[in-house]
């Protein structure tokens, strides 16, 4: 696609000067089109997040002003203070952290060995099962699991949330790890086996350290999927066991008019994920395109 940079005069020497001029003109138009395209493509995202930030830093007067005010005058952190003071966001943050870390940790514990086993035995049927799990709508897990948790009397605790989040995290970890283990050279493991290591030792001390980048990718994606999940929480969480996305939704239903705290709450919820995206973009992109799996 990209036009090659103008070549040295020696190779283009015999060309007519007007042809070179036309080439330059076309190249220039091409570049201008590219910049314009990128600007059009990127601005909806940038403007959205700028506006989100602006809403969260403005006082109520500025937020309901018409025409809308972009730059807070003066900027205030009162909205954030209110979110934590009035809505008990500290509890919900802790809930979210517990649920996402547990669901990610458990998924790694189960999923990394499983990815290894499936890669070694080339059990493609297991991989198909994971794909079907990805296709199934989240609500279809919720209806039966909701009943089971009700029978077990577990509603109102964090366990149902952690368990249902495994629906998201285990398949993504297994999927990414299958791909990663399949791509690893087997020579090192084999020499370990020849030296008398058990297959567990070969896995634990050879394969896992080699697969660390893959585990990193799986961890980040599993964490993000769990952190962002809303549907499981909205059904299974009680008053004190809400995760952040559920809590922020409740801010909407009860305080529809005050935009500042609402935007501040939204920003608090999504900030960890946005920061992860900024700093771990390479891993995230690798995971999403390699697996092509998204919960």
């Amino acid at each position, binding site marked *: 696609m990209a036009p090659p940079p103008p070549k040295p005069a020696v190779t283009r020497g015999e060309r007519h000067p007007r042809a070179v001029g036309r080439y330059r003109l076309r190249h220039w138009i091409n570049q201008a089109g590219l910049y314009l395209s990128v600007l059009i493509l990127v601005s909806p995202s940038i403007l959205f997040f700028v506006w989100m930030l602006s809403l969260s830093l403005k006082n109520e007067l500025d937020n309901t002003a018409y025409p809308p005010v972009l730059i807070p005058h003066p900027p205030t952190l009162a909205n954030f203070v209110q979110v934590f003071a009035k809505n008990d966001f500290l509890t919900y943050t802790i809930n979210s952290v517990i649920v996402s870390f547990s669901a990610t940790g458990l998924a790694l514990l189960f999923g990394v060995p499983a990815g290894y086993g499936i890669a070694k035995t080339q059990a493609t049927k297991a991989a198909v099962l994971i794909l079907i799990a990805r*296709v199934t709508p989240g609500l279809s897990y919720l209806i039966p699991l909701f009943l089971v948790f009700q029978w077990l009397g577990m509603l109102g605790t964090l366990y149902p949330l952690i368990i249902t989040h495994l629906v998201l995290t285990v398949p993504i970890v297994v999927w990414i790890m299958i791909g990663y283990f399949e791509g690893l050279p087997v020579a090192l493991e084999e020499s370990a086996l020849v030296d008398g290591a058990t297959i567990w030792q070969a896995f634990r001390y050879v394969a896992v350290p080699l697969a660390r980048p893959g585990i990193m990718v799986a961890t980040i994606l599993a964490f993000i999927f769990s952190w962002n999940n809303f549907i499981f929480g909205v059904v299974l969480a009680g008053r004190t066991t809400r995760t952040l996305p559920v809590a922020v939704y409740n801010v909407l239903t009860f305080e529809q008019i005050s935009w500042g705290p609402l935007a501040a709450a939204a920003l608090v919820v999504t900030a960890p994920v946005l920061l992860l995206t900024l700093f771990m973009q390479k891993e995230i992109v690798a995971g999403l395109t390699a697996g092509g799996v998204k919960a």
Partner: protein
Amino acid sequence: MSATTTGAPQGPTTSGAPEGPTASGVLLAVRRRRHTYVRRYWVFAVPAALVVAAVIVFPWLFTLVMSVHDWKVSGNVYYVGLTNYAHLLHDDRFLWAVARTLYFTTAAVVLPVLIGIWAAVCFARQFPLRGAARTAFILPMMATPVAIALVWTMMFHPQLGVLNYLLTSVGLPPSSWVYSSTTVIPTLVMVETWQWTPLVMLIVLGGISSLPIDPYEAAEIDGANGWQMFRYITLPLIWPFIVVAAVMRVIDALKAFDTIFVITNGGPGTSSETINMLLYQTAFGYYDLGYASAMVLVFFVLIMLLSLVLLHTRQQELTL
């Protein structure tokens, strides 16, 4: 990769001409041992298999059982055979939800795929600040859906929303966005497109960056222009990636829940009630779990059918 022959050099174990007795002996032993390993590697998958059985396979089967029962949360459970399914066929609300879902899905696949290809072609080229631009572009996909849905809701506000301000300031009439039954689905499609075009872009970009450069050099020499190169070289080569991206979009658009739930909750009236919204309402609003389970199964079949049909086109040549 093959689990039985990689790693060590191909030993002469079958040719019957051993180079050295010890070397081939070890090789044979390793190979024999590895054969048993292949079976034993299953052990690694057992814990995950148990988890998957409990939280994924069990719900599938249980849904199947519930779908042939009149199953209310309050307690009474009656076997009703296929009544729930028969009921679905005559349930206008459900049929409208299916129609709405297909409308939403078509638009929420076509737009992200087209814009995603355009974006991938742009991001495949070199330009200053490309990394930063790409990060900004993929943020909507990573952000917490509930959070962005909330901000969109504020932007859609008919009087105070920033979007109507922007429209009127360039001389366009204000829109009623999600507050009218005719504009609500296009508006939700806009949000979905904004959110998920990045995924299409990433998949297609992966395809473009794996392309060979020889065809382009040849085309350059033959005097092809940029559009011709895209149309006759890039597009056919990245077609499989586009299909994969489209399949993912179909699945995700059919399953769209968070943003619709937060922004409209199916409203106004039922004008944005997709299958997923109705499903939620049936299961956790009316607690009619049997009927909801039947709906889940029909929904699942619909998702599988549509994605398989699309995947089938992957096999076909791109002939336009």
